[in-house]
């Protein structure tokens, strides 16, 4: 076929124009924008003038992301091939896997119920090329992150809080131009991502994160919980903003917004964690202990105690739990004030009576919702079965119950609540004993079925979930429970050594109930039995606070939950004026058939801690997020971002950013390396972490669903 001459001429003109474009530096990718990176990690825009790069990057597997420094005609180091060999180093038979995170340390100061924690993460580049390290790590779900430092040798650069997308954009620009930069973002209230760009070979960079939160006071004991690893999450089909569980080196293949890479059972990394707590309980303490780790304690001046890990360092595969019990009578309702610049805030810990036997018992309609997904296989499911036995045996003849179990789908023991007769309890126990863990975590299906069970209005309905909480769609579940709740209460029970506390606490909050946790080494029967026995005795319902002469606003939680024995509630708010002398507040509510009013004297704290203001700000953010779970529009995001920036407390719509603008690093290209972590103690890798290739194959549907 003959091509018409006019087409040939047009084609020739187009070719010449393209050549001119390339000659002048114009490319498909506009200047100042990121080179378009393909799935294989190649940058098309850089291949034309970087032949050496393209040769050395040839062997890069599709799982790696390579980025190129935006620098005109810079000489190429030619070290990428060697770097590749490093990055591909396999850990076999427990061999060390080289990772860029060397050490994390937690330094905690506890004063009363306030905890101030400094986390220091030490990043070191063990490879022979520049890297960007990405580490997805947990913090307590109520952590108010207020400060961020990037430490390079003796130099300490304080990060600035910014709107998240703007911070990400600046970080990417700095990364492309070869500057060392660090970005901290919040993915969930208890999951954070730390990125550090342009760590040169052999160089070390630290980041320091400061956060404030409160210790819990549960069943007469104080508890400090430090999570050290994010558990592998399940994401229902169609989810894209979840938290994925991927094998090491496969994170970039995840369809989810966040991917956590896990070390295989035969691999380990050199990343260890050190924990030290300085405890100033501000009251005499009878006992200090940890159910999770061996600790050593040392008495200090002023009634304080220094607590460190007996082994100094530990593998980050379980929560660190520290508990201490007051020596004298149980704590009474307490009130603190704080001041940070012009801002004043308060914290009120409402403590109900600890002894439930003095309270009237209310007949219950218990709906147990049991997670029997793959991540519950082994010890966690055994703990749940232990707990269920204790719960069922604790039911009264006037109570009714039903059991719902879920994994890939939900089913139940029966269709309606049944009376807690000996025969029904025996059948229910057999049903529970026969549960096997397998498949996905379709928690929505479980809750939908639970709330669809007919309700007897004469009884207090308690929906009680037992789970490790390893799901990536927390918002969807919280929104669902909020919409279906009606007059029911949700009691959430977290089982495992590294539970998703955000989900468990969130369910209790939206469900106006309470949360409890039990580790795999703890006696779940006793703990859960006590927890559910107490659920039958609300110490105070329809709770409200009369603030009297106190000027308060933005008080959280907005609706106070019922108070159950052993489950105090923390109330925080902003003080609009100084507290007048002799001020009192009244806590009102109903107990049985009568109205109760407790008057409490309140005063300014002798040393108003700024921490109270940070904690109030964090509670305000958490409340707004919970209230709007699943339906956050741009206006709310903007409002949250502005509040977060003005109070320097991180939220999902802001980020801490630090760039070292004083020096451009050497080298032209780098690799993005995700920090792989171990699966939590008690969780099986093979039932929770799935290779993306296997997910795509229909023959492996079972593994795809196994979480």
């Amino acid at each position: 076929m003959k091509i018409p001459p006019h087409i040939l001429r047009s084609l020739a003109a187009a070719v010449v124009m393209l050549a001119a474009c390339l000659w002048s530096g114009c490319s498909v990718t506009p200047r100042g924008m990121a080179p378009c990176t393909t799935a294989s990690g190649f940058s098309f825009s850089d291949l034309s003038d970087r032949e050496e790069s393209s040769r050395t990057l040839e062997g890069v597997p599709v799982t790696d992301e390579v980025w190129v420094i935006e620098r005109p005609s810079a000489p190429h180091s030619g070290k990428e091939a060697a770097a590749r060999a490093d990055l591909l180093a396999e850990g076999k038979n427990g061999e060390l896997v080289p990772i860029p995170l060397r050490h994390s340390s937690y330094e905690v100061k506890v004063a009363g119920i306030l905890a101030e924690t400094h986390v220091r993460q030490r990043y070191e580049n063990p490879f022979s090329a520049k890297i960007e390290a990405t580490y997805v790590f947990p913090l307590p779900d109520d952590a108010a992150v207020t400060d961020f430092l990037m430490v390079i040798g003796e130099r300490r650069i304080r990060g600035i809080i910014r709107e998240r997308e703007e911070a990400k954009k600046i970080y990417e620009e700095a990364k492309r131009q070869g500057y060392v930069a660090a970005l901290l973002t919040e993915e969930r209230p208890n999951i954070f991502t730390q990125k550090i760009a342009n760590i040169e070979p052999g160089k070390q960079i630290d980041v320091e994160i400061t956060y404030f939160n409160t210790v819990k006071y549960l069943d007469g004991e104080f508890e400090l919980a430090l999570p050290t690893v994010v558990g592998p999450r399940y994401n229902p089909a169609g989810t894209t903003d979840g938290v994925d569980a991927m094998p090491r080196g496969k994170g970039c293949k995840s369809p989810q917004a966040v991917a956590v890479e896990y070390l295989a059972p035969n691999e380990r990394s050199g990343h260890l964690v050190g924990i030290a707590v300085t405890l100033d309980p501000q009251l005499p303490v009878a006992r200090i202990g940890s159910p999770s780790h061996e600790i050593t304690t040392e008495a200090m001046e002023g009634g304080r105690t220094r607590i460190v890990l007996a082994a100094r360092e530990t593998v980050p595969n379980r929560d660190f739990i520290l508990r201490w019990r007051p020596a004298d009578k149980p704590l009474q309702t307490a009130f603190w004030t704080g001041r940070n610049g012009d801002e004043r805030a308060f914290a009120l810990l409402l403590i109900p009576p600890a002894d439930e036997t003095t309270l009237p018992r209310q007949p219950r309609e218990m709906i147990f919702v049991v997670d029997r997904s793959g991540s519950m296989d082994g010890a966690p499911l055994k703990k749940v079965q232990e707990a269920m036995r204790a719960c069922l045996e604790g039911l009264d003849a006037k109570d009714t119950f039903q059991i719902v179990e879920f994994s890939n789908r939900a089913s139940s023991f029966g269709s309606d609540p049944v009376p807690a007769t000996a025969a029904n309890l025996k059948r229910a126990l057999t049903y529970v004993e026969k549960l096997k863990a397998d498949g996905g975590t379709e928690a929505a299906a479980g809750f939908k079925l639970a709330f669809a069970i007919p309700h007897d209005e004469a009884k207090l309905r308690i929906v009680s979930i037992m789970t490790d909480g390893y799901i990536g769609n927390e918002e969807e579940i919280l929104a669902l429970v909020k919409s279906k709740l009606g007059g029911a209460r949700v009691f959430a029970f977290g089982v495992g050594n590294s539970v998703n506390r955000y989900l468990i606490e969130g369910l209790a909050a939206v469900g106006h109930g309470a949360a409890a946790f039990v580790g795999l080494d703890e006696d779940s029967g006793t703990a859960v039995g006590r927890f559910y026995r107490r659920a039958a005795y609300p110490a105070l319902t329809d709770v409200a606070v009369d603030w009297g002469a106190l000027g308060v606003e933005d008080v959280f939680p907005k609706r106070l939950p019922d108070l159950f024995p052993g489950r105090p509630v923390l109330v925080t708010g902003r003080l609009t004026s100084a507290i007048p002398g002799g001020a009192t507040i009244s806590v009102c509510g109903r107990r049985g058939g009568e109205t109760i009013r407790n008057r409490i004297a309140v005063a300014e704290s002798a040393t108003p801690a700024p921490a109270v203001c940070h904690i109030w700000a964090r509670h305000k953010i958490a409340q707004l997020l919970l209230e709007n779970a699943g339906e956050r529009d741009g206006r709310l995001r903007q409002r949250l971002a502005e509040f977060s920036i003005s109070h320097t407390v991180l939220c999902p719509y802001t980020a801490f950013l630090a760039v070292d603008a004083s020096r451009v690093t050497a080298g032209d290209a780098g690799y993005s390396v995700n920090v792989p972590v171990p699966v939590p103690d008690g969780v099986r890798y093979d039932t929770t972490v799935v290779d993306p290739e296997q997910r795509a194959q229909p023959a492996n549907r079972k593994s795809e669903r196994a979480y």
Partner: protein
Amino acid sequence: MTAHNTKHETRNAKRGWLLFGLLLLAAVSGRAAAAAGVVESATPRFETRELVVDSRGAVGLAAWQVELKYDPAAVAIVGVEGGAAAPFGPDKPPFYDPKGLTAGRIILANLTTDGKLRTGAQAVAKLHLRITAPGEPKIETKVVAAGTAAGARIKATAEVKKKS
């Protein structure tokens, strides 16, 4: 039919060469601009500046608070570090009040309990900046407070400057 085709061919060829000419012109001017070192305003650059506080009197500076104002469309602060030497050295980054940050206002502050205080001009902080406008960014300074270890106020001025 043939006459129409020839006319069409000529028109297409003319259009092609016209486009080529325009693009060539743009390309040449682009090269010339790059050679002359003209910075594209859309390409952000990262630079540092020193915050220098000059305190007068015989007693050294122990605490300072400086307000910075700038055009947020032209410059952004992407990190704050300590100054050149003790007591406000690189290991002592200042604190900041972010209220007004989005509007181009930030208050930096620091204090020291170090006994070796200095008088006169000293770099108390290093600002890490992302600059999007060509030329030197304009950053206004105002000393909110400057004081001695005893808490007495002292007179001081502040300026942001390139490290000499």
